[in-house]
């Protein structure tokens, strides 16, 4: 994480999205979103279902034309310059089909035959942990195995721009780690990756930068730390009955008081120091004391619940 975050900020973006819009009839699913992804960088689009993530990705993938704004992949238009763009781009759709009557190996080999610079088929199969299943028909694979095969196809052409729409939804924890390793390998090789996910831990594990989407707009974006910083830290503790009330420090927003206290603050350390000093001075026991720095998850929930971004 820390190493990839240091991707040179001067590098030319591999993906440039400007004021992207997309509508279905009267419904505007994507309402003017901008972002850039540089080589060696992972950008995660987060948001609840219907926030516009897939609609935006379909334009990046060149499967739909934008209603407004533009998308450039290495400076080229994914629809108009499809041939040039596709030879260096890999994509995994949120739901996509594989013919059930081909084996894993046949599926990978025939797909490789359509690509400019395919990886070795056996190696690609091994990388998603399907070596032992190479001669099994796709029909007989589990959902997770099918998803991993799908991913193997998505990156079979050695893409340097990768778009993954919910790559690990429905995968067990072990498969998910396998997918993460694969993504990390590609990023280390210089690929620019955009992904959507429902799993915040996935974004935390992989993403250098994150944007949280709501109703077609980016409500929050930045590094995980930057996004987390938009939210207050939380201090929780419980006081026994009869204990005096602690003085409330100035930087605190009181969410609940005795016996179970919850304070929100943007100055966690001084607030905590003040609280502990008070407790020591009065011989008070702070039961279940908990101090939590702001997290990506907290920001995500704040956006989902409408506590952030209504003004935007």
């Amino acid at each position: 994480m820390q190493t990839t975050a240091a991707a040179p900020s001067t590098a030319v973006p591999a993906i440039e999205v400007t004021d992207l819009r997309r509508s279905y009839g009267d419904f505007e699913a994507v309402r003017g979103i901008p972002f850039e992804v540089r080589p060696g960088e992972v950008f995660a689009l987060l948001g609840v279902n219907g926030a516009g993530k897939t609609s935006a990705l379909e334009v990046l993938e060149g499967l739909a034309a934008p209603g407004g704004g533009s998308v450039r992949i290495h400076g080229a238009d994914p629809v108009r310059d499809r041939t040039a763009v596709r030879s260096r781009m890999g994509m995994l759709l949120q739901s996509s089909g594989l013919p059930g009557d081909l084996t894993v190996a046949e599926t990978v080999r025939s797909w490789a035959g359509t690509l400019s610079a395919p990886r070795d088929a056996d190696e690609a199969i091994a990388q998603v942990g399907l070596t032992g299943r190479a001669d099994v028909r796709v029909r007989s694979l589990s959902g997770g195995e099918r998803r991993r095969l799908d991913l193997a196809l998505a990156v079979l052409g050695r893409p340097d721009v990768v778009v993954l729409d919910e790559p690990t939804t429905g995968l067990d924890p072990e498969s998910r780690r396998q997918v993460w390793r694969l993504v990390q390998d590609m990023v280390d090789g210089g690929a620019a990756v955009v992904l959507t996910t429902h799993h915040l831990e996935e974004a935390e594990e992989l993403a250098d930068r994150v944007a949280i989407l709501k109703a077609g707009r980016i409500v929050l974006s930045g590094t995980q730390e930057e996004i987390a910083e938009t939210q207050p830290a939380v201090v929780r503790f419980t006081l026994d009955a009869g204990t005096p009330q602690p003085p409330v420090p100035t930087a605190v927003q009181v969410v609940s008081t005795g016996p179970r206290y919850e304070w929100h603050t943007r100055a966690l350390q001084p607030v905590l120091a003040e609280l502990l000093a008070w407790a020591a001075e009065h011989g008070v026991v702070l039961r279940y004391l908990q101090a939590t720095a702001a997290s990506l998850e907290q920001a995500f929930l704040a956006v989902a619940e409408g506590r952030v971004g209504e003004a935007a």
Partner: protein
Amino acid sequence: MSAAPTTRPTTQERTDMTTTTATRPTGPSRPARLRAAAGAEARLLVRNRTAVFNSVLMPLLLVAAVPALGIGGGEVGLGPTLLTAAVVISLVYLTYYNLVTTYVARREDLVLQRMRTGELSDGEVLAATAVPTLLVTVGQLVVVTAGVVALGEWSAPVQPLLVVVGVLAGLVLMVLLAIASTGFTRTAESAQITTLPIVLVSSALSGMFFPLSTLPEWLSGIARFLPVTPVVDLLHLGFSGTTWEGEPIGDVSVWTWAVFPAGVLVAWIVVAAVLARRGFRWAPRR
């Protein structure tokens, strides 16, 4: 299927690829990548028993039934009748029907949408799906031709070019009509109904099973403008130099007679192409 290169690019190559497009290998030629995708589709066809029966056995059985049904013969002769029947049956029951069900099944299984995520163009995706069916169609015609020769019923076409044009234009029309028909076909099963206008009506009124002159004038007038009829007309003209009425005509005027069916065929190809462009969807309706 072409073999994939087995070597990984070196770090240097990798870096080059990320910086410029020019250093990307040019990759397989268009025919090679079409072959790779069509090869997978051919495997699927062979492994689908229903499709094998429908596309290999059914048409041959139908053609074999033609003499038993007492169709044709007489003026035109058994050989040309069998060949014309083979063309109509293969085009309608095999090319058209099989392609509608295949395209719809692949669309509903989200396979078409995934095939679009690679380097194949949209046209190549559609073509790759159609190639095995087209090859089986041609194979059927070869088998029937060989059978006709074996029966000693072969007679050289009066105007071979008309036969070839009729078959090729018919193939193009059926592919386009199949693509257009997917627009109003929700599932592979419902194709059994949505294909009836062509499979039942147009082929019955094509002049293949009975001469159109036996129909009331208004109906035969309509029949001449249906999509399969001009194919039969061109084949009759090409094989035996007779009109759809079975009347012999002079060699000079064969081309004059061909103008009308050829015009109807071209008009249908244009209409089908427009409908295909408008009606075709890559993904199921949400």
